[in-house]
C-alpha cells in the first residue's frame, strides 16, 4: 500500500514527491536548482532556514529560529500558533557538510520521529531526499491525522495570510 503522489508536471517548476516508503517512514524528494553547498547552507543557517521553512498555507508565523547545526547541537523553532506559541525542537545527530543531515524531533517527547536529509549534486542541481522515520506505524498514522486536523484548524487563517503575503511580495 505505497500510495505515491506527484505534483503535475510543469515546464519550469521542479516536482516534489511524497511517498510512504514503509509502515513508519515517509520520504520526500525534490530537485533544487543550485549546488549542494548552497542548499545545505539554506538548511543549516537560521537566517536562511527561517525564510523558507514555514509552509505558506499553514498560516503560521515564525517567532524565533535557533539553529546550531553540529552533531549534538540543538535547534528550536517557535511558531505563533493559537492558543499559544508552539515550539519545535530537537538535536542534530548527523551533520556531514553538503551531503547529509539528521535531526531528532523532540517536541512530542522522547521517541519522536528522526528526520534524515541527503543532498546529491548533479550538474549544478541538488537532489534532496528527506526521510521522516517514526518509531512505529501507529506513530506515523497519528502524525498524519494530526496534520489533517491542524490544517482544518488553520484553514480560516489562509485568506488573511494570502493578503499579508501579497502585500509583502509587492514591496
Amino acid at each position, binding site marked *: 500500500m505505497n500510495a505515491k503522489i506527484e505534483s503535475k508536471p510543469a515546464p519550469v517548476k521542479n516536482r516534489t514527491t511524497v511517498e510512504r516508503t514503509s509502515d513508519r517512514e515517509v520520504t520526500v524528494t525534490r530537485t533544487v536548482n543550485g*549546488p549542494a553547498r548552497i542548499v545545505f547552507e539554506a538548511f543549516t543557517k537560521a537566517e536562511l532556514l527561517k525564510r*523558507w521553512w514555514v509552509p505558506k498555507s499553514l498560516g503560521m508565523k515564525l517567532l524565533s529560529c535557533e539553529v546550531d547545526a553540529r552533531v549534538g547541537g540543538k535547534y528550536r523553532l517557535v511558531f505563533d500558533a493559537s492558543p499559544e506559541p508552539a515550539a519545535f525542537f530537537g538535536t542534530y545527530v548527523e551533520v556531514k557538510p553538503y551531503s547529509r543531515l539528521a535531526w531528532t524531533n523532540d517536541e512530542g517527547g522522547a521517541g519522536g520521529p528522526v528526520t534524515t536529509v541527503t543532498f546529491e549534486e548533479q550538474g549544478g542541481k541538488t537532489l534532496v531526499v528527506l526521510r521522516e522515520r517514526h518509531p512505529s506505524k501507529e506513530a506515523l498514522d497519528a502524525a498524519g491525522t494530526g496534520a489533517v486536523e491542524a490544517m482544518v484548524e488553520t484553514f480560516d487563517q489562509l485568506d488573511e495570510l494570502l493578503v499579508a503575503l501579497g502585500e509583502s511580495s509587492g514591496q
Partner: protein
Amino acid sequence: MVQYTTSRLDASFAALSDATRRGVLEQLGRADASITDLADKFHMTLTGMKKHVGVLEQAGLVTTKKIGRVRTCQLGPRRLEEETAWLERYRRHWDERFDELEKVVEELKRKEKSDERKNRK
C-alpha cells in the same frame, strides 16, 4: 467530480445512519469477519446481514471477498483514500517549502556571482 463526491457522501451517510451497520464497521475495525460471523454477532439472519454489508460495500466502507464458500468482509478502500489525502496535503506543504527554498538558493547564487565579479576587479 462534484456529482461523484456527493453521491459517495450520500451513500456514506445512508450507510452510517443504521446502528447495526455502524456496529459492523466497529467490529471490522477490530478484525475481518465472515458474513456468518457478523450475522451471529448481531443476532440476524444471513440474508439480513448480507443486505447491510451490501449497503456498506456500495459506500466503499467495506470490501468483501469470497474464499471457498466463505465471504469475508474487511474495512474498505476509504482508508486508502484518507491516506492518499493526507499524503497529498503533506506533499503540498513540502512543495511550498521547497518553492521558497529555491528562491533563497537563487538569491545566494546571484550574490556569489556578483561577489566573484567584485573580487576580480
